[in-house]
């Protein structure tokens, strides 16, 4: 109970923090937590190694940006629509890639991520090309405009992340979650046990994509601008690193991973240009000494010792 109170306190403290920079770092951490939770469904639950996750984030961000700029669509309508669009993208990507597995899936998704980013860069008439889109509307809650202050976004992202985290842990224990574990462990055996492998894989991709869409929509509304640079391969890799470092398949773990990997570079700011250099070393050391992740589940720990989860 005291632990829960402590967590609640930590989570709500930033609302009284006068330091705008610190709140912004936390808002970014919450955004990453949302993304990591989504990718965790795909990689952690269903065991599909996805290297182009940033593409779903981009679909969500551009969906809201275009709807808002062209049709004046309000944020609260844009949010579910962006999620649906990114979820549909995940589903559509899933249809052709059901045939490939393991490393090959990783490569196809990587190619997909790059294609989306370059297409967005090149379709200048719609997306503004490399300069991106400007002047995207901020959310308005009744008469309160979120504006450029990070605090309301932190709150919103916190609520979204909490709901998604809750849903994920429920999902993990449901029949769907069990089916995903079965597929992750042994696809052939799962198929033989009567699990519709393709359907559950598509579901994981659709849900994971949809969550990235939510994050993308909030991101676009918070920044007020979207540019293709925000959705490069590095982002996909960072979110994946959060999932793996936090603990594949563990909801608490991936949130922790997102917090550590998004806040650590900020804490290293005093090292100036050596910051990312040190960050690289930290990543190597973390995985060296804790291969199951910071918060690896007993299940994952067992797998990490015995057989390979994925390639």
């Amino acid at each position, binding site marked *: 109970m005291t632990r829960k109170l402590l967590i609640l306190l930590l989570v709500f403290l930033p609302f009284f923090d006068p330091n705008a920079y610190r709140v912004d770092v936390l808002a970014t951490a919450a955004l990453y937590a949302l993304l990591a939770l989504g990718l965790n469904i795909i990689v952690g639950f269903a065991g599909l190694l996805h290297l182009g996750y940033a593409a779903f984030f981009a679909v969500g961000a551009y969906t809201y940006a275009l709807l808002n700029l062209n049709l004046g669509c309000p944020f609260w309508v844009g949010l579910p629509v962006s999620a649906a669009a990114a979820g549909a993208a995940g589903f559509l990507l899933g249809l052709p*890639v059901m045939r490939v597995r393991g490393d090959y899936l990783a490569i*196809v998704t990587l190619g997909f991520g790059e294609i989306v980013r370059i297409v967005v860069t090149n379709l200048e008439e719609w997306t503004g090309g490399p300069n991106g889109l400007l002047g995207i509307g901020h959310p308005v809650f009744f008469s309160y405009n979120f504006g450029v202050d990070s605090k309301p976004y932190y709150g919103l992202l916190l609520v979204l992340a909490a709901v998604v985290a809750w849903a994920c842990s429920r999902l993990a224990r449901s029949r769907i979650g069990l089916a995903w574990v079965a597929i992750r462990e042994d696809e052939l055996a799962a198929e033989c046990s009567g699990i519709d492998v393709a359907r559950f894989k598509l579901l994981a991709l659709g849900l994971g994509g949809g969550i990235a869409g939510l994050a993308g929509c909030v991101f676009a509304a918070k920044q007020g601008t979207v540019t293709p640079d925000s959705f490069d391969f590095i982002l996909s890799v960072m979110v994946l690193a959060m999932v793996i470092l936090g603990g594949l398949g563990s909801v608490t773990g991936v949130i922790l991973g997102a917090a550590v990997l998004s806040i650590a570079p900020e804490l290293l700011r005093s090292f100036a240009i050596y910051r990312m250099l040190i960050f690289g070393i930290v990543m190597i050391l973390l995985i060296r000494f804790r291969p199951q992740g910071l918060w690896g589940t007993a299940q994952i720990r067992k797998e990490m010792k015995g057989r390979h989860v994925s390639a």
Partner: protein
Amino acid sequence: MSSSELFLQQVINGLTIGSVYALIALGYTMVYGIMQLINFAHGEVFMVGAYLGLSVILAAGLQAPAAGSLAWFLFLIAVAAAGCAVLGLIIERVAYRPLRRAPKLSLLITAIGVSFFLQNAVMIGYGAQDRYLPSLLPAVTWGKGAVTVTPLQLMIFVVAFLLMVLLHRIVYATGFGRAMRASAQDPLAARLMGISVDKVTALTFALGSALAGVGGVLFGSHYSTVNFHDGYLTGLKAFTAAVLGGIGNIPGAMVGGLLLGLIEGLSAGYVSTQWKNVIAFAVLVLVLLFRPRGLLGERVAERA
């Protein structure tokens, strides 16, 4: 420029850049063959190779083609190859070997860590802006009509070709090559036959990294600039080339590299340079969907 001239010119350009892709792709494919690991730090090794070349040029105060330039050019290549071979050994030792028993996903994370480290080390040492890398070969063009080839292009092609022949000899006609193929086929059986798989893996890393280093110098000279970000996209494309040919398959990486270069050159000439990368990646996705083992690959990764 007539249409046949345009076609020929793009084929020449494509083969030039394609032979660089092939050199880098070989490193991906050899490491994959032996460890089933996609070495995501490989692109950074290529970038470091280009900077090693730049360092020699700066240290020796070389500027433009002069007498003895060709010897210097070959010296740059040798330095990049040697430096990157050592770098490859270090990466294998620090980032991969301690995790031999860990799942492949943890290796992905250490590879990313190594990438961050190398990119930022180079950025700190040489600055974040593009650095000018002068070509040491004469800036003349040979050719007929609108179809031209530069000495540098010819050199890139020749160097890449000779290295690939050499590699082919090493892999298929030496004891080390046999040990390498045995380790790729069945590590346990190889160990039982008295092969030190650790040593073979380390040497494979060194060999692949040396080729990437040479690729770095050739690529940097071709575009006249180097940047610490260069490793990412080029590495990705070389990887595409490796997959195109069939990952784990050595002749496949060569064919894949040249083919990818051709596809890129022709799409730059007939579609637009903006879209050439989309076309390259679209080809990758299509190949994987319809012929997942690649053009020459015999193995299918069934590791879920």
